[in-house]
């Protein structure tokens, strides 16, 4: 009976819109704040500014709660809101949003040993492989793996083609697979 996180988000969205449910709003915050903050931090160097941008998007969600039901995919919508606010902020600083300088961090880099099912050695080899990806590839990889976003949503969020995403993700996975095979060969 466990619900997938996307179903949970849709359920929280409905409850906020229909009942002004503060508890559902809190649960939504717990699910999405950190992914959105990390996404904002890819473009905005200041940690505080990135947090403020995401907090502002959450405030906007509450202030527009009665219209929330009109949004098809709340998570995708909030990522777009965060991106737009980042662009605005950068424009104010006479900068543009660049995917090629984005310092992307993967959450799983901070996994504690008991959260890892694959062993410490293997984990660090995998992360070495990921570190060698371009910032753009890394961001795509993070959005697909950690945020479970669809190719078409990543494509519209980052203004790149689905084909590019397919190719870059496959390359990333292939490199991870090589790292895994290297470890298993050296052990056997």
């Amino acid at each position: 009976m466990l619900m997938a996180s996307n179903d949970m988000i849709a359920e929280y969205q409905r409850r906020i819109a229909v009942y002004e449910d503060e508890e559902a709003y809190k649960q939504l915050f717990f699910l999405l704040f950190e992914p959105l903050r990390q996404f904002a931090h890819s473009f905005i160097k200041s940690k505080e500014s990135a947090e403020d941008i995401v907090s502002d998007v959450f405030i906007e969600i509450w202030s527009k709660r009665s219209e929330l039901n009109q949004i098809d995919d709340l998570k995708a919508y909030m990522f777009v809101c965060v991106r737009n606010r980042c662009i605005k902020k950068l424009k104010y600083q006479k900068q543009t949003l660049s995917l090629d300088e984005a310092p992307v961090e993967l959450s799983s880099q901070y996994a504690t040993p008991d959260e890892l099912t694959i062993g410490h050695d293997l984990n660090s080899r995998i992360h070495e492989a990921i570190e060698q990806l371009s910032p753009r590839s890394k961001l795509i990889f993070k959005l697909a793996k950690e945020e479970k976003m669809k190719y078409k949503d990543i494509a519209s969020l980052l203004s790149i083609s689905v084909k590019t995403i397919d190719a870059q993700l496959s390359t990333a996975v292939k490199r991870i697979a090589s790292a895994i095979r290297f470890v298993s060969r050296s052990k056997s």
Partner: protein
Amino acid sequence: MDASNTDRIWTLATRKMSGEATLPELDELESYLKLHPELQSTVQAVEEFWRTNPEPDREYMEATYLLHLQRMKNRGFDFNSPEAQQPSATSLGSRIREILFGPTSIVAALILVFAISILTNQRPVKPVSANLQEAAFKSEVSTKYGSRTRIVLPDGSIVFLNAGSKLNYDKNFGNTIREVKLTGEGFFDVAPNPDKPFKIYTDAVEIKVIGTQFNVKSYPGEKTTETSIIRGTVQVTVKERPNEKYVLKPNEKLVVMNNGSSADSTHPTLTHHEPMVSIRKLSYMQGEQTAVETSWTQNKLSFQDETFVEISSKMQRWYDVTFEFRNPRQETARFTGSFKDESLQQALEAMKYTSAFHFEIRNKVVTIY
């Protein structure tokens, strides 16, 4: 195996993990892996890595949320403090944030408080089952005949309480457990929380859910206890058959025959061949979006192919009257219909069109003859 073949495997495996693969692509990947079993374990390891995503630290999130609430407050959005949301038996009024059906919330709250004293003095409910201790359910909300209400529980779950019903819950509700006791009829919209299942106890059944919308009808003295599902899935245990669990899906209802109800003894012919427990479909009126079972939450009194006796017990609660049948033949006459703003007089006049009967309303007693 050449390089382009390996590339194809990783493209397909990536699409599979991202949920982007089509069925033919999944088949293609499978046949590649049959040809190259040596890659099997690597693909599995990659998939395992893909699934591993650590949760953000709970304490960090709590602190971040408090900061966010502070920023919201500065913009004029002030959430209730956690202290104010603690349920307590002494501050019943504060638990009822919104009353839908009363003329004003204050009047309705007064009626509710008044109703509680009537219920406790004059309408004692049957003793609860052994696994429940009365002391565990300290907070109580109830409705008298002719009124309905909406309750927001401390966990954010919403309960619509139909007329002549009662909901009890513990002051620890939401902190460690989510358990309520229902007498009468309630429509539940349970806030999702996989860690704390929501449990509802009635005289005849126990219902366990995670997050869903459903209706429970369990009036003392009625022939059946009904659990009707609108969204999600619930699990029901019938007290008489503790080893069986019934899992219900949307648009289904579980109908349980109540033991020794007064309806049984008065009308043995009505219940003669009915099974003790049955799963049925919800009924919908032509052109209606809302099921008959939950139409009361929209201020509608609906019935589909029900006997006059069954309808009269609904009308008794709806209009706060009692019924007397002078002619037994009229008790079994069947009706289908729906009332919204009609008065009792108008409703009975409308019913007269489909079945020949006379009625008289005097001092809150309706006589059918």
